[in-house]
């Protein structure tokens, strides 16, 4: 059984169709790229999967459970995490708190222990803190733990956003243009990072990206969207050659790198 199965998913805003009959089956452990011109409906897919928008029609089943009608935080707890195209960190909080917030979902102590600092509070806080620091260590952010997230350089903010998403212990990770605003050097590092976390955390990843070098370098399967519909699907090599993709998205010179 696939981890995620989306069938005939459609979404329209007023009269505007943002996504039409979108089908996708994702197996456990896959690394899938979602590409397409601006306004093709890529981010809409993520917003539907994470419950930010209700779908107009269609089905979304994750690990055997229907995602429709679930609130975003419920979906997160079911095991789907995401990052955002325009970074959405908790800017005025510390790096550590950013991760801690993600960690506490699912396991938590009650209000009374919180108010009076009772043993359950002490114990859980310790757990959360240790786990968070460990995660920051992995993402080379531990030294930054006490800093305001908004003060981090751009690349580190992107890393922190991924770290934070991982702290929710997802099975499926949705990355929305993680390389946007990165230089080629950083993009390269990101490429290996994505691979590594997929293996290390046994994740399934769906990636939206304009940077073809990243998509082609990391994805095993690529889905191309245009005007809300899938126009092509296949391995990176197949996609590069596909005339429809070239016409709609890549241009006559094909992929640059």
């Amino acid at each position: 059984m696939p981890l995620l199965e989306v069938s005939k998913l459609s979404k329209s805003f007023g009269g505007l169709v943002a996504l039409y009959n979108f089908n996708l089956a994702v197996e456990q452990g896959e690394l899938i790229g979602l590409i397409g011109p601006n306004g093709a409906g890529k981010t809409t897919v993520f917003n539907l999967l994470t419950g930010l928008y209700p779908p107009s029609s269609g089905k979304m089943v994750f690990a055997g459970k229907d995602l429709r009608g679930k609130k975003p935080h419920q979906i997160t707890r079911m095991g789907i995490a995401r990052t955002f195209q325009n970074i959405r960190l908790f800017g005025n909080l510390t790096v550590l708190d950013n991760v801690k917030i993600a960690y506490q979902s699912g396991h938590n102590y009650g209000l009374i222990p919180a108010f009076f600092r009772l043993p359950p509070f002490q114990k859980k806080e310790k757990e959360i803190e240790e786990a968070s620091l460990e995660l920051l260590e992995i993402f080379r952010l531990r030294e930054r733990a006490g800093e305001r997230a908004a003060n981090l350089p751009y690349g580190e903010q992107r890393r922190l956003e991924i770290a934070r998403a991982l702290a929710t212990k997802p099975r499926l990770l949705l990355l929305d243009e993680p390389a946007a605003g990165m230089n080629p050097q950083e993009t390269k590092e990101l490429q290996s990072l994505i691979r590594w976390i997929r293996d290390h955390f046994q994740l399934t990843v769906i990636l939206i990206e304009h940077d073809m070098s990243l998509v082609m370098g990391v994805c095993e399967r690529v889905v191309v969207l245009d005007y809300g519909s899938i126009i092509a699907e296949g391995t990176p090599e197949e996609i590069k050659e596909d005339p429809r993709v070239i016409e709609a998205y890549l241009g006559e010179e094909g992929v640059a790198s």
Partner: protein
Amino acid sequence: MAKLVSSRKLRYYALATAVFFLLGVLLSGCGAPQKQSEAEKIKIGINYELSGKVATYGTSCKNGVVLALEEINKAGGVLGKQIEVIVRDNKSDTAESVNVATQLASMGVVAMIGPATTGDVMAAEPVATSNRIPLLTTSATAPTVTFDEEKNKVREYIFRICIIDPDQAMVMADFVWNNLKLKKGAIMMDTGNDYSKGLAEKFKEYFEAKGGKIVATEGFVDTDTVFKPQLTKIWAKKPEFIYIPAYYNQVGLIVKQARELGIDVPFLGADGWDSPELVSIAGAKALNNTYFTNHYSSQDPSPEVQAFVKAYKEKYGVEPDSFAALGYDAGRLMAEAIKQAGAADPQKIRDALEKIKDFPGITGKLSFDEKHNPIKEVAIIKMVDGKQELVTKLVPKR
């Protein structure tokens, strides 16, 4: 690490709280009030609503009191001493009223005048009582202000100078029944105001006891400016008169709007109507065929009244309303009480107040009854082309 941070914070909170309270204590130490013994002047505290919701009334009262006390000072003061007038603003807020009263008490005043409204007086009452300082209110009309019904005991230190609600309501009910000979009326009252509600209640009680009928009662709130909805509704019930126990700024609008709606029956009211502004708001014509109860009339030709009106206009640039007149009397009454007490001693002043007999105020001759309410004649005034005309003076038959 985080834990250390938080315990540091905790310490900080504790310390901060401590520092703040200590600060308060220190301040209190520095500013300890001087005792009144060596004071050359007799201090009278004025606690009024000078800002906030009912600033209009509080300011008028205060103006009257200050005018009276200044005149007395000019005439040599009392007991050979000048009076120091300490004016404080309670923001039309009960907590502030407590605050101001305590401040005045700690400054060593021998008497307090004000506040103007029942709630604010009741907030200041425990302060006056526990400090044993007499408090004279100009305009708080609720019975409970001077008399504790629960304990069935008079509030020893509280006095008032205005006629109480039942007196005015009774006189008006008599007048309607006997003189105007009307049987079917309606009431419009300010539901956010105890004065208005008290009068309305009492009027209904007395009028219905005589066999009259109140066919409609409508309310409004003090921020209202449009009264036509209520008036339209009342008018549908065909009353022969409408009783509006409220203040002039609302009454003016109500009468004006009522006449616009073609409501031509008499309007009746109480001392809250008395203000030169009433005519300019409602218009002289609209006010024809209206009557209200009052203690005095600013158009009263008596020399005392006219002297007051002139002095007030000179000092403040406006004509006095009934609040100002009550304030003026309150100031003079207080000075008289001090004189009769023979010493600037709060307890003696209180005793003297209780014994006041036929004090010649501009709002009428005044004595206090056993509940510290004034016994005064009530005047019925008729509006004719924008001028007040005295119809009759009645003594309430309690």
